[in-house]
């Protein structure tokens, strides 16, 4: 049987310019390009460090050229956009339970030999941490990691 043919309204390739929220969405998605850019940058730097002081200096001279500095400023902006939007989405993507949670017995359906059959299970309920707590604790993590890396590199 062939798939039914349905009409689809053509969507412009520039659909995301129509609304501010769409633009923000596409900017957020584009942040991945700068993640990849800086990963490559870091790999080149570590490679240069491994090859000796001279090649490290050469790398840093290249990294100080105006074009690369501008790219890295843009990369920092996109990276911060990624951080803020990622932290904001975490409480929607996962349930974080605090001390008030407890285990209860429940039923669920499992697939056995192609059949759905009921089975006993245990689930955790209650004590869900509010979104603001989840978001705030991520910023605490961000500050701690940033402080540690800065200390490690500059001490």
């Amino acid at each position, binding site marked *: 049987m062939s798939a039914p043919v349905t009409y689809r309204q053509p969507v412009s390739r520039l659909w995301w310019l129509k609304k501010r929220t769409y633009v923000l969405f596409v900017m957020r998605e584009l*942040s*991945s390009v700068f993640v990849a850019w800086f*990963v490559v940058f870091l790999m080149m730097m570590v490679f240069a*460090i*491994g090859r000796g002081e001279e090649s490290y200096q050469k790398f840093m001279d290249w990294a100080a050229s105006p074009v690369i500095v501008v790219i890295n400023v843009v990369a*920092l902006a996109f990276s911060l956009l990624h951080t803020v939007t990622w932290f904001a989405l975490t409480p929607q993507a996962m349930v974080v339970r605090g001390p008030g949670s407890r285990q209860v017995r429940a039923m669920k359906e499992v697939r056995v030999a192609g059949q759905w059959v009921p089975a006993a299970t245990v689930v955790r309920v209650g004590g869900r941490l509010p979104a603001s707590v989840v978001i705030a604790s991520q910023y605490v993590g*961000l500050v701690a990691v940033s402080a540690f*890396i800065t200390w490690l590199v500059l001490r």
Partner: protein
Amino acid sequence: MTKRHVEPIVWLLFSGGGVVASVFLPILIVLFGLAIPLGWVQPEYDHLHAVVSHWLTRLVFLGLVVLMLFHWAHRFRFTLDDGLQLRSFDRPIAVLCYGGALVGSMAALLIVLTI
């Protein structure tokens, strides 16, 4: 059919890379992309070499790089699919994105092993 088994793994790599990028990347860009090249701070080469060649740094570096590369691959795939309406080319786009991340991961492994 195989696609169904691969999808959860790339999702896991995507979200793992998203977490890592959100926490580690801003400070790394500030330090190595701006502060050191522009001379705001100047750590000794020997110190940097010692930090980078420590086995724990190598391990963490490799983990961060692999996760962030697959984060890029997964997100960029859908940026092209949905953003530019290229859904009909999803297969080749996916091969290029995940393939690119895989090549990058291999390169990172080589770099880490030969510092």
